């Protein structure tokens, strides 16, 4: 069998500069430079800080990916880049670099969808997906349920957050209870010592009425307010705040609503495989509860390792590989970035 084409993927939609190299569903390199440390003191991703970091990191990260994969740019057959969704200024750095690379190498360029890229990443871990799949994507930037019927060209959005992303909710609640940014890992650590059943926090959009209008959607602003009120009431009454218990109960509320709706989507759409991805999917409680509920429902759960779960270039290369294999036309050099690119548009 002839060797599959070598695809180079570039990702700059948020605060990670990623360059990956992939053949088919085989991972060759996944170089990532993160600007997360520069955002810590601001308590969240600052778009301009992220964009500046992308510009500084893009060429060094490209070099590192090539070294890791032990290939040269001359070996690259096609380039894929995140065209959206994401932060506009950040996306533009990656797309501009990718277009220049396409010109310099004389190789085709594909502008692809970041969200579908997260699903494609799983193929690098456990091989080709048996479509259709339902994907639960949870990170600081997004909280979505997708259905992917054909990875290269048929994806739809089933539900999404109406306010904060799950990761943002973790960041904000961490700040409320005196934990550091990013909130995810700090809350998880604190929660290990806590009792999740000692406090009950609301599950957003799960009432009967909400389930008819926002069946697969999420909302975390009410949960965040509930935590804030609980903490303040305790403080006003002179009680010390049991940080581990609050962290555990909050985490449980998020994990419960995420997994409940994702499993529901699988059941109602008769989908037998779920992909869990995004940085927050690294949270052990979310992972465990998803595994548990998928097992109960007879759904196969697939999840890539953490480095493929968070934003990276390999996932974009993996999607690029699927798109090339499907023989879809390249995006050319004139396309614009689209910070709200719909998930139905896998290739721009």
């Amino acid at each position, binding site marked *: 069998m002839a060797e599959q084409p070598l695809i180079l993927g570039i990702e700059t939609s948020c605060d990670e500069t990623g360059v990956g190299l992939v053949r088919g569903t085989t991972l060759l390199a996944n170089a990532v430079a993160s600007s997360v440390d520069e955002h810590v003191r*601001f*308590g969240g991703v600052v778009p*301009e*800080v992220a964009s500046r970091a992308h510009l500084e990191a893009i060429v060094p990260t*490209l070099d590192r990916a090539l070294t890791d994969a032990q290939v040269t740019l001359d070996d690259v057959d096609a380039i894929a880049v995140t065209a959206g969704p994401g932060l506009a200024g950040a996306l*533009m750095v990656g797309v501009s670099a990718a277009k*220049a690379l396409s010109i310099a190498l004389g190789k085709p360029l594909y502008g692809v969808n970041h969200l579908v890229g997260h699903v494609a990443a799983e193929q690098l871990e456990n091989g080709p997906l048996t479509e259709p799949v339902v994907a639960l994507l949870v990170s600081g930037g997004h909280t979505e349920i997708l259905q992917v019927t054909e990875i290269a060209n048929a994806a739809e959005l089933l539900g999404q957050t109406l306010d904060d992303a799950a990761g943002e909710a973790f960041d904000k609640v961490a700040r409320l209870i005196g934990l550091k940014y990013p909130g995810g890992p700090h809350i998880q650590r604190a929660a290990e010592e806590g009792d999740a059943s000692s406090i009950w926090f609301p599950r957003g959009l799960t009432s009967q009425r909400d389930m008819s209008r926002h069946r697969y959607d999420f909302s975390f602003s009410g949960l965040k307010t509930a935590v804030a*009120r609980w903490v303040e009431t305790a403080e006003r009454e002179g009680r010390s705040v049991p940080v581990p218990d609050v962290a555990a109960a909050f985490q449980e509320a998020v994990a419960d609503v995420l997994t409940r709706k994702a499993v529901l989507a699988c059941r109602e759409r008769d989908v037998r495989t779920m992909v869990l991805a995004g940085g927050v999917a690294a949270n052990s409680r979310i992972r465990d509860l998803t595994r548990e509920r998928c097992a109960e429902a007879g759904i196969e759960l697939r999840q890539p390792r953490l480095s493929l779960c968070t934003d990276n270039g390999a996932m974009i290369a993996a999607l690029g590989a699927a798109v090339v294999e499907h023989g879809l036309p390249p995006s050319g050099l004139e396309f*614009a970035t689209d910070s709200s690119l719909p998930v139905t548009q896998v290739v721009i």
Partner: protein
Amino acid sequence: MDTSTPAVTVALHDGDQVIAQSTTVDTRRHTELLAPALVDVLGAAGADRRDITEVAVGVGPGPFTGLRVGLAAARTLGAALRIPVRGVCSQDIIAYGVRAIGVHENMPFVVATDARRREIYWAYYEPDGRRVLGPQVGAAADVAASVPAAPGLGAIRAAGAGALLYPDAFAAVIGPEYPSAADLASALISDAVPSGAPEPLYLRRPDVAEPSPRKSVLTSLRTAH
């Protein structure tokens, strides 16, 4: 190439002269316009990408997002073709253009570009094109007080879109409005401008505030009722 202003400008210089150029003015479409322009100038000159021996890019100052489009492209092009990339202050390119057409009439002049938020990026040049002040960012009205009094000259002449935006701050507005890549290439080839690493001249820090102490939810809920 230069993308530090609304102009997306690309030119190809063969060492003797500019053999192809393209300039399009559109504030919001730098990412879309730059790469096709690169392909167009190569095509117009009948050149191949592998014929390029060096890349030069305007490093601003300029609005950040557009500026980065050119820098990301230039750096990546240089890395992929394994050729050097040089950065030039974008205002020096306009200053070179001013002298090329002689509109400064052998007087000192200012180059000003739009920095938004009612400010300009500006630099001050001797008649021979030497930059003696700037680039810096500030209100156009404050420029007059900052530049040396030119002998025999009541007020300052200024080039660039920033001068067109605030004509009252200057005695005369002269051309060109934007940097041109053709000027950039010619200026470098003739050693008329200083060059360095392709590092962006942002002049402003990222516009962010560190989070304030958390507000009382109970109080805000009460006042809302």
